[in-house]
C-alpha cells in the first residue's frame, strides 16, 4: 500500500492503494464514482474511459501510480443531471442511450474529440468513437448527439 496524491474532477485527495491498482478501482471504490465502468479490464471496450490531461485513457489498464499528480476527469466531472455538460444535454436530447452502460466511454471520447475538433464530420466522429463498444446499438443516435453537441457548442462560442 502506498499513499499518493490524485486529482479527480478538480478535487485533490491522498489515495491509499496498492500502487499497481488500476485507476478504475480507485475511482470507483475510493472516490465513489459511477461514471467509469468495468467492462473488460483489457482496454477493449472503453466503458472505463476517463480523460487525463486532455487525452482519453482506459482507466482499467492504467496503474494508479502512473497517474499520480495528474488531473483526472470522469463523466461526473463534466456535469450533473441538474447542471449537465453540453454533450450530456445533447445525448439526452437525442435519447442516445439504451442500457447506457457504454455511454461513459462514448461521452468521454466525444469530449476529447470535440476539444480537438469543434466541427467533426460524421466520418471523423465514427473514427473517433470506433474503439468504444456498444452492444445495444445506440451508435446512430450517438453520432447525432455528438453533432448536435458540436453545433450547440459552436453557437455558444
Amino acid at each position, binding site marked *: *500500500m502506498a499513499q499518493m496524491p490524485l486529482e479527480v474532477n478538480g478535487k485533490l485527495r491522498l489515495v491509499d492503494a496498492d500502487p499497481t491498482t*488500476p485507476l478504475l478501482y480507485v475511482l470507483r*471504490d475510493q472516490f465513489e464514482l459511477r461514471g467509469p465502468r468495468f467492462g473488460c479490464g483489457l482496454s477493449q471496450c472503453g466503458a472505463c474511459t476517463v480523460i487525463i490531461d486532455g487525452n482519453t485513457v482506459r482507466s482499467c489498464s492504467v496503474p494508479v501510480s502512473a497517474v499520480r499528480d495528474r488531473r483526472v476527469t470522469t*463523466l461526473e466531472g463534466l456535469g450533473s443531471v441538474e447542471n449537465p455538460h453540453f454533450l450530456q444535454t445533447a445525448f439526452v436530447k437525442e435519447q442516445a442511450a439504451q442500457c447506457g452502460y457504454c455511454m461513459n466511454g462514448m461521452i468521454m471520447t466525444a469530449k476529447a474529440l470535440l476539444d480537438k475538433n469543434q466541427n467533426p464530420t460524421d466520418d471523423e466522429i465514427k*473514427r473517433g468513437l470506433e474503439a468504444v463498444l456498444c452492444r445495444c446499438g445506440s451508435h446512430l443516435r450517438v453520432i447525432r448527439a455528438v453533432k448536435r453537441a458540436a453545433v450547440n457548442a459552436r453557437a455558444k462560442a
Partner: protein
Amino acid sequence: MDTNTIFQNAISRRELIKGTGALVIGFSIWEPTSRLLAQQLPAPPGSSPYNNPDYLDPTSLDSWLAVMRDGSITVFTGKVDLGTGVETALAQMVAEELDVQFKQIHMQMGDTAKTVDQGRTAGSNTILRAGPQLRQAAAAARQELVKLASARLGAPVEKLTVTDGVVSIAGSPAKNTSYGDLVGGKSFNLKIKVTGMQTGMIVAPEVRAKDPTKYKVVGKSVPRVDLAPKLTGQFAYTPDVRVSGMLHGRVVRPPVIISKPVNVDESSVSHISGVVKVVQEGSFVGVVAQTEWAAIQAAKTLKVTWSAPATKMPSNPEEVDVYLRNTKSFKDQIVMEKGNLDSAFSRASKIVEATYHWPFQNHGMLAPSCAVADFQGDRVTIWTGAQGTFTTRDRVASMLGLPKRKVDVRFVESSGCYGRLTSDDAAEDAALMSRAVNMPVRVQWMRADEHGWEPKGPQQLMAMRAAVDDQGKVIGYDFSARTFPWTEAQGTPQLGERQIGQKNTAPLPGNPVGSGAVAPIYDFENQKVVGSYIPWPQDDPTPLRTNPLRSPGEPGGIFASESFMDELAFELGVDPVQFRLRYVSDNKRATEVLIAAASAAEWKERRSPTPALSGPKAAGRGVALAARGDTIVAAVADVDVDKSTGQVTVKRITLAHDCGLIINPDGLKFQIEGNIIQGVSRTLMEEVKFDTTGVTSLDWLSYPVITYRDIPDVKIVLIDRPEMQPFGAGEPSIIVVPAAIGNAVSDAIGVRMRQVPFRPERVLSALRVKGTAKQPS
C-alpha cells in the same frame, strides 16, 4: 442449386474415417442418458401467488400501486427494465389510465418483497402482458378513487372528471379533491379480481379501461426517465451497489468443463494484502478480499489443481453440425402441418433444397455478470440485474436451505443482457461467498469469465425443401430445424449451485422452444414445419451451456426460411417482393408491412441476381419478411461486397414494423435501431470459437462485435394500429436482418451464403467455389 440434404444421408469423410455415422467420437457427455431440461417459456417455474405468504397478494390493489400524500403514484411491478425503456413505457400506460401526469408516476421494479410476480422480463412480453396487467390495476384504482371522490364531493360518479389526479365536478372545477387528498399515504384495502400466474396473469378484467381514441400520454414519445442519470454518472447499475461492510469476491472457475478442484493452495495468495478468505465448497472456488483489486489478483494467482475433465468438448462447429445432424432428437415439435406434403413432392416438377447453418453466439453483455449478496444468518438480501428476480430468489433459497420469504432479491439494472440474465449465475456466487465470510460480498465476473461461461445462443441447422409444380407454383414447403434445448433456462440450478453438488431436479423437456422452426407467414397448400431438439449435456455444464438469446432461434430460423424464399424466387425468375406477395395471401398486415418496407427502400422490381457491375465492388439488395407473435416486420438491406476481399458492407437497412398499438414511438424506433445494429453484428461477425478444451473466444478481439465503421444507415417505418393491443417490440425486428443481408449479398455476387457469420474469408471461399462470374438468372 446445392442440394445438401443433411438429415438423411450426409456422413462426412471424417466420420467415415472414425468409423461411425451416428455418434460423434469423444463426446462422452453427449450420451442420450444425459438429462435434459425443459425450456419453460413463456412461463418459468413459480408457485401460485394466491394465499401464499411467499408472494405479494395480486388480488390486493395495494400490491400494484400506492398513492402518496403529494399525489404521486408509486407503481410496483415484478417486471424490470433491461435498458429498453419499458420503465418509461409502462409508466405512460399507468399515467394514461389514472389521468395523472406522466411525471407523477414512479416505478418500483423487480423487488421480490414489494412487487407481484409478473414473470420474468423476456420474450418481448413486457408491454404485451405486463402492460395490460398494470393498465387494469390502474383502471381499478381510478374507479375506486372516483368512487371515493363521489362520496366526498357529493356528486355522482358520472359527473366527475379527472385531470392530473384532481377529481372535479364537471362544469364546477372549483369543487374538487385530489388522489392525494383521498388516499394519499393510505392503503386502498380493496380486493380486485385476478386469475392466472406471472406473464399469464389477468388483472381486473371486469374494469373498463380508457377508450384508446382518448389517449393523451400513450402514443407520445415521452423521453426516458433513466437517461439523464445514466449519462451523467449518477445512475447506479448493479456493479455500483455498495453495502456497508461489503467485501469483493471473484470466482475461480475451471478453465474447461466443470472439473473438481483436487488441490487449492491457499498459501499461493497469502502474500496478497487484503485477502479475507479462499472459499471452497464442493467444486466451487472463489476468493473474497477487502478490495476489488486484491480479489482480482488473488483469483488470478490462486493455485488450483483441477481434475482432468471427465468429458471433452466438440473440437469445432463442424463437429457440432455433424452431431446435430446425426443424433436422435428427444423432441420433434410440429409447429405447423397442412395438406399432404408427400403427395405434393411426388407430383412436383421441380424440387428445391438447401441447408443453412447458424453458429453459437454470445449475448455479450457489456457489463459482465455481477451481484451483491448480504447473508445474515437466517436471511439474505441479493441485489442483481436478473431478468427474473423471483426465480433468483427461489434458486438462492433452495441453495442456502432458506425459506423463500427469507430471501429478498432486489433488481438493480445491469447493462443490456438480451436474454443472458434469464440465468443468474452471479447471485449464486455472491450468496455462496457471503455465507462463507458472513459479510456482504459483491461479485463481478471478469471478461473472460463472461465470454467463457455465459450460456450461449445455441448452434442451429435448418433444412428447407420446396416442391414446385409445372406452373411455377410452390405446392409443398418443408422446413426442419435442429438445435439444442436451453440447459440454463432460468429456474434450474446455475453454475455455483451445481458446483456445490446440487443436482438438477428440473422435469424432462416438455415444450422446448427456440428451434427457429417458425410457421411461415406465407400460405402454401401443403406445408410442414418441424423443430427438433437434440440432447445437450446439462447435468455437468460446459462452456457451451445454452439459454435464450434475443428472439431465440428466430434470427437463424428466419435466416433460413427467408433466404430460401429468395432461392425459390431466383429459381423461378420472379422478383423477391412480388414472389412473397403471391404467398402472403389475405394477410393484410403482412402485405402492408412488406409494401411499406419495399416502397420506403424504393425497391425496383428485378429478377435476381442483379447484373454484375465491373470492378471489385458489387452492390445488391435483399428483402425479408416475418412475424414474431403478433408483430410483423419486413426489412430491405442494401449491401456492397468487395469481391477481392470478401468484405460485406451493409450500407442501409430499411425496416417496416407493425406491433399493434404504439405506446412510445421514439422508444419503439430505438428498439428497432438496436435490433438492426445487433442483427448486422450477429450476421457479419459473431461466432463463438471453441475447441476440445473450452471456449477460446474469451475477449472482444476474439469475439468481435459491430463498431462504428460497420454501422449502416437505418430507415424505419412505423405502422400504428390504435385499434389493437400493443404487441412486443424488443426482439421481432432482429429476425429479418440476417436474411435481408444474405439475400442482398446473393443479389450482389450471385452466390448464396447459407452460413452465418458472413466473414470475409467465408464470402471469398464461396466466391471461389462458384467462380467469380455472376450466373445470369
